[in-house]
């Protein structure tokens, strides 16, 4: 029973971290490798607001969310827009930005183990005989909430529908008067905000270190690749598969292999079906 509950927790955690990345790639085909950097940036911003500037928790989180969303939009406007369409340049540009952000944070002296942001509620609850702490339950709630929000947003609101249109066929969307650059900016801001939300809910579990940024990036890429680059439901399915795979390996084999599982899963996907489980790439576009 414990396995089931914790698998769900891990899956939704993975989903939360990856959904921002999936969103951005789905809409504008931009691999935003700065995702991990933005995640960590949020963590340190919240910490800074709480501890250095004495802002209260709600204010700190909202401010950090806004700042990170703005940073994301700026990244698009000034950097990614110029390199769109050239996959290697995009990856290099966004990855160097991520590196710049993370190493910059490190050079500010934000090293060590003492940087944490507080949990929403401290305490544990026993679910079906298994103790689970409140924060993890909140993560499940927030994760499901985010997915629901995205679904509603992209099906019932105008900007959301525009994003979906762009994801399906950019040119057709442009013909209908949707400004692709503006939408891309909105999309990146949204994706960064999602990374921020993920950071705010997940980072309280442990502490904030720069290395987590790199790990987060690997997980986000893994989830999106397996689920299908460009497919949001795919990301959800992939997150669950990966989450369960990780917990099952930990429980029955040994925890040693769970990172290897992730990387092997990515490789397998590429070999068998590069566009992932639910990807919409045509066969010809993805392999020769």
């Amino acid at each position, binding site marked *: 029973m414990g396995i089931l509950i914790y698998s769900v927790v891990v899956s939704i955690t993975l989903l939360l971290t990856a959904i921002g990345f999936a969103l951005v790639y789905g809409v504008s085909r931009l691999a935003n490798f700065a995702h991990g950097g933005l995640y960590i940036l949020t963590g340190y911003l919240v910490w800074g607001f709480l501890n250095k500037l004495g802002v209260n928790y709600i204010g700190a989180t909202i401010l950090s969310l806004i700042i990170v969303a703005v940073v994301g939009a700026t990244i698009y406007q000034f950097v990614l827009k110029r390199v769109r369409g050239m996959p290697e340049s995009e990856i290099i540009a966004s990855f160097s930005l991520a590196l710049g952000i993370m190493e910059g944070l490190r050079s500010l002296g934000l090293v*060590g183990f003492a940087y944490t942001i507080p949990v929403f509620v*401290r305490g544990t609850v026993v679910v079906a005989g298994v103790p689970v702490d409140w924060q993890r339950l909140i993560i499940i709630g927030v994760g499901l909430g985010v997915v629901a929000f995205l679904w509603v947003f992209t099906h019932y609101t105008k900007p959301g529908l525009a994003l979906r249109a762009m994801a399906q066929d950019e040119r057709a969307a442009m013909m209908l008067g949707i400004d692709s650059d503006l939408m891309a900016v909105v999309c990146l801001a949204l994706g960064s905000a999602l990374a921020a939300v993920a950071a705010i809910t997940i980072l309280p579990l*442990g502490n904030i270190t720069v290395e987590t940024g790199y790990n987060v990036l690997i997980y986000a890429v893994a989830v999106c690749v397996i689920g299908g680059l460009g497919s949001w439901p795919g990301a959800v399915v992939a997150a669950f598969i990966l989450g369960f795979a990780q917990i099952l390996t930990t429980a029955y084999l040994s925890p040693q*292999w769970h990172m290897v599982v992730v990387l092997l899963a990515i490789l397998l996907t590429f070999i068998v079906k590069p566009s992932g489980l639910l990807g919409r790439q045509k066969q010809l576009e993805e392999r020769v």
Partner: protein
Amino acid sequence: MRKQLSFIETIGFCFVLVSSLLIASLSHAAPVSEGRPIVIGAPLSVGFNYGLGSKQSIILAAEEINAKGGIIVSGKRHPLKVEVADTRDLEPGVPTSEGLMVVEKLLLQQKADFLVGGPIRSEVMLATMDLVSRYKKPSILSVGAVTPTFNKRISDDPNKFKYSFRTSGNSINLTTEGLGVTEQLKKQHGFDKVYIMGQDVAWARASSSLYKSELEKRGFTICGYELYPTGSTDYSMGLLKAKESGAKIIFPWMDMPETSILINQWYDMKVRALLIGYMVAATHPDYWNGTKGTCEYIADLYTKAGTVPTPALPKSVEFVNSYKKRWGKEPISEYDGSCYTAVYVLVDAIGRAGTLDSDSVAAALEKTDIKGTVMGRVRFDKTHDVIYSQDPKEGAVSLWAQWIKGKRVVVYPSEIASGRIELPPWMK
């Protein structure tokens, strides 16, 4: 329409690039001064806790010595100058060659006379041993790099590596400490069921498997033995298994920051086992504030004493106070005492050698015997490693500290303890 730089802008751009290059290289030209300063090179990974703490300890020691007038060699007064260089060796993606380039730069360009401190990662440290031997500069490793391969290399070829020394100790000592504290818990509370969680890196694997086999020989029940890869964010399975098996001690061997997640989960699940072991994440003085007290009752091994003050080591109390005054915090890393001491060990050896010549200083280092340092008595064995003991009058000690009510209390070894190991309330 993308804006391309015009010709003038490109030339200007290149000019800025080249001139900044020149300015940066010029700023390297060290001014030549009189009573020539003795340069201590400190290759450290300053972007990490270990590196930053070591840097601060070494600089503190150097400043103290300079305040007392520096080192006197053949009648001349020499101030100490510390050159810290960032090796980035603790960063996962960085190749060892970076660290080696930095050490070479320190030795060749920045004219370091001696090396104190790192490199910290064993792989880089082992490669640096060859450099140290090639350039013939005494080096005292004082942070991390606890692999026993160091001892092996020196005993295999003592002449080649005669300039390499180490005050940070050996990973086998860590296992001995772990066994000692576990035996004490068995005596005090009858705990004989242990759940071991190690990190999936070479030192932790070696230490934890040695720990496991020794415990089995002494009649303990091993309820579980797991290895977690670096970066693991979930310990729920392990903790649940520990709960079900009735383990009374959960012993981690981890140096990754994600250990905090383990600690928080242990606290939240109220697992009826004492969380005691080697968890570097919890050795930071701000850890209590950071976790808002969820780290209470965890007991943590500090490889070398000095970081947490205890009356049995009077120098450590002085050290912690000076460190706090100079840097605003108590020592942030478990090796701070070792780094601070290493500088004094070097100065002591130079004093006895009476010269700055490398061979003489190396020979003097071998005969080092300083009592009453922040970590006990410092002597080197035949493999140039600091002699370890649980008695500060015999050798360098490690310490175990437990977080109680926001403060760290030294609980083991008994020769230096200022309190007993407390059990969390849900275990009583």
